[in-house]
């Protein structure tokens, strides 16, 4: 449910709320502490700072039960039950479960997250909670990670811009709404701005600039402010837009001719403080082999994408360069770890997880096939089962859900693709998302 942006006083009423004692610290020491209490805006009561990443796997099973598996101690707890889930994503803290049928996205706070200070990180844990649900039309695709979180509904093209800080407080606050045209597209926050684009058909006339299209014009990526209003002139062409990912360097968009990279730049073309650069593909890349979807370790500058049936792409957003890794078996998923050893982890079409070397493209290690039952079920009717199979990587491990097998596998990519742990999940883990990172 969408609530109007509340003032702090409105949350608390105008009467004084009762005194919350701070234990012995309440009146002790140099801190002058007031008597009555209000939790300051943005504060998460009960959040604890921890020594290390509080990694969790959110799984949603065939019955819609969302459970959180604590990767530190292996315990699991059910959080909520959802209907008709069709896709799941995460920004590393919140789990976004989209249901295409009713056109909803339910936002669940996993309660664990990392704050990145570049040279070091801070790790937090609080209680998980269901934050709320937003409603649109069709599949809602969510992008987050910063102060803004966006949802774009494909069937209407409508986008919502939400306040991430309020999600942390347990409230869904709509800061802006982006009108659009039905069809695939992207809506991605970047700092205080939002980047929007709609996918055009191959070979269409090119960028449209219809008045009132509010930045969702096809074949172009536009800059909107946090209320959804287009910034005049801040736009860049992107034909056949497909796929987007955010790295420390900027936001990547997949275009027919290569990547479009938006960075917080300076210069003539940066009306909104955002610069666009093109990173073209090497010569001779066919449409079938272009990158359509990207995967990385959260924030890392090098991202990976499946290259048709030929292997994988690596895009180094810092160096602005593409490289190509050939594999014998076509890939279904791929993610770049971007660690010092250059590990790239992929799910091959035969159900094996491969570890590739970013520098040489060679296959360093492979697991046994991990998805025999899932692949068989996908062949014989339940084609959607494979759509929810996800491969996620963090600094030390990769995780793969095997729904028909009823397992989530933890893979040590730095140690010959060893299966470190396998977690049984009740009722088929249809969807997977890793939080706490």
């Amino acid at each position, binding site marked *: 449910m969408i609530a109007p942006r509340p003032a702090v006083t409105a949350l608390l009423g105008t009467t004084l709320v009762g005194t919350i004692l701070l234990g012995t610290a*309440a009146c002790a*020491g*140099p801190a002058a502490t007031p008597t*009555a209490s209000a939790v300051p805006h943005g504060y998460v009561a009960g959040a604890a*700072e921890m020594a290390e990443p509080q990694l969790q796997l959110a799984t949603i099973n065939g019955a819609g039960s969302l459970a959180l598996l604590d990767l530190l101690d292996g315990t699991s707890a059910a959080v909520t039950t959802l209907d008709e889930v069709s896709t799941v994503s995460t920004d590393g803290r919140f789990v976004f479960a989209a249901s295409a049928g009713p056109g909803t996205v339910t936002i669940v706070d996993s309660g664990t997250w990392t704050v990145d200070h570049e040279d*070091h990180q801070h790790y937090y844990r609080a209680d998980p909670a269901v934050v709320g649900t937003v409603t649109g039309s069709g599949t809602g695709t969510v992008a987050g990670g910063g102060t803004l979180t966006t949802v774009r509904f494909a069937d209407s093209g409508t986008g919502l811009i939400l306040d991430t800080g309020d999600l942390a407080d347990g409230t869904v606050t709509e800061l802006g709404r982006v009108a659009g045209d039905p069809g695939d597209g992207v809506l991605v926050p970047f700092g205080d701005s939002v980047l929007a684009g709609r996918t055009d058909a191959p070979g269409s006339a090119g960028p449209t600039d219809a008045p009132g299209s509010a930045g969702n014009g096809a074949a172009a990526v536009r800059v909107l402010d946090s209320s959804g209003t287009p910034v005049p002139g801040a736009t860049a062409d992107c034909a056949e837009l497909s796929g987007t990912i955010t790295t420390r360097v900027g936001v990547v968009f997949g275009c027919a001719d290569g990547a479009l990279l938006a960075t917080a730049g300076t210069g003539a073309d940066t009306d909104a403080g955002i610069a666009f650069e093109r990173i073209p593909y090497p010569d001779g890349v066919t449409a079938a082999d272009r990158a359509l979807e990207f995967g990385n370790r959260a924030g890392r500058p090098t991202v990976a994408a499946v290259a048709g049936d030929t292997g994988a792409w690596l895009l180094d957003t810092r160096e602005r360069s593409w490289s190509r890794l050939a594999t014998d078996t076509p890939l279904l998923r791929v993610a770049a770890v971007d660690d010092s050893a250059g590990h790239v982890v992929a799910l091959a079409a035969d159900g094996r997880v491969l570890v590739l070397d970013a520098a040489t493209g060679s296959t360093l290690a492979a697991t046994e096939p991990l998805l025999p039952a899932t692949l068989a079920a996908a062949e014989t009717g339940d084609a959607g089962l494979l759509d929810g199979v996800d491969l996620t990587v963090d600094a030390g491990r990769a995780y793969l859900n095997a729904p028909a097998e009823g397992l989530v596998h933890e893979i040590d990519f730095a140690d010959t693709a060893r299966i470190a742990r396998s977690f049984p999940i009740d009722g088929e883990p249809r969807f997977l998302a890793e939080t706490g990172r």
Partner: protein
Amino acid sequence: MRLIRPLTLALAGTLGLGALTGCAPPADDRPLVVVTTNILGDVVQNLVGTEAEVLTLMRPNSDPHSFEISAQEAARILGADLIVTNGLGLEEGLQQHLDAADSAGVPMLAAGDVIDALPYAAGTGSDTGNTGSDTADPHFWTDPARMIDVVEAVTAAIQADVEGVDAAAIEAKATAYTAELRTLDTEMTAAFAAIGPEHRNLVTNHHVFGYLADRFDFTVVGAVIPGGSTLAAPSASDLRSLVGAIDAAGVRTIFAESSQPDRLVQVLADEAGLDVAVVELFTESLSEPGAGADSYLTMMRTNTERIATGLSP
């Protein structure tokens, strides 16, 4: 260590009622010195005694990079006679409030501006590929000599900017506290002198000991401490960075923050044949009373004792 961040208290609907304070003495007519971090808050309290009210914004056991303040505190900042900050980018979460106070003409002193600042050391405890940055390291307090420089500057600022304090009384307190800091410095020098130069290696995932290392000739050896998800089913590859650091440093104690230090010790023994202790240090915040770091002097002595014990042959 699990650090529960205490609730920050505020008063709804009383913005601007700066005179309303909670604890005795109420209705404080004394001048107000606002300090951001609790480490500097303790230091400043030692300098002003009862001559002024000291409002420390950061609670015990919190994170100086991201703590938040109440609306009431934000209002009180604007009425302060002096604001003492750490500076060098430490209090990023407070910047808008500090900027507002600066615009309002409140005198401000950033400790980082009065010390000989060091560049940030190469990223420790992370494999992010950072090789250090151009920015200065804000964690100057791990060197007591630099804290003496700060005390001198804060004392001068109080005398210059805070009306109504007894300058002679402030001078006397500053002299006494500086003497305590010199004693601390002497103690630390003596304790570390007992560690041979070849053993003065801090294998750590903490990122705050650059100044201590600079002052007392330690080498900070950054290490990736395996997290709980990898310690559950570890392999040698998970330990490679840490084992390499321990071997290179030739130490029997590492100073790491780990949620499962006992498990880490066991894994290092089982997988790498290393017999090491895992010891935690206080880093960026004072503790609750009695917990080992309830004042700046106590925090420094606790860390000194732990380092000296851990690295002595």
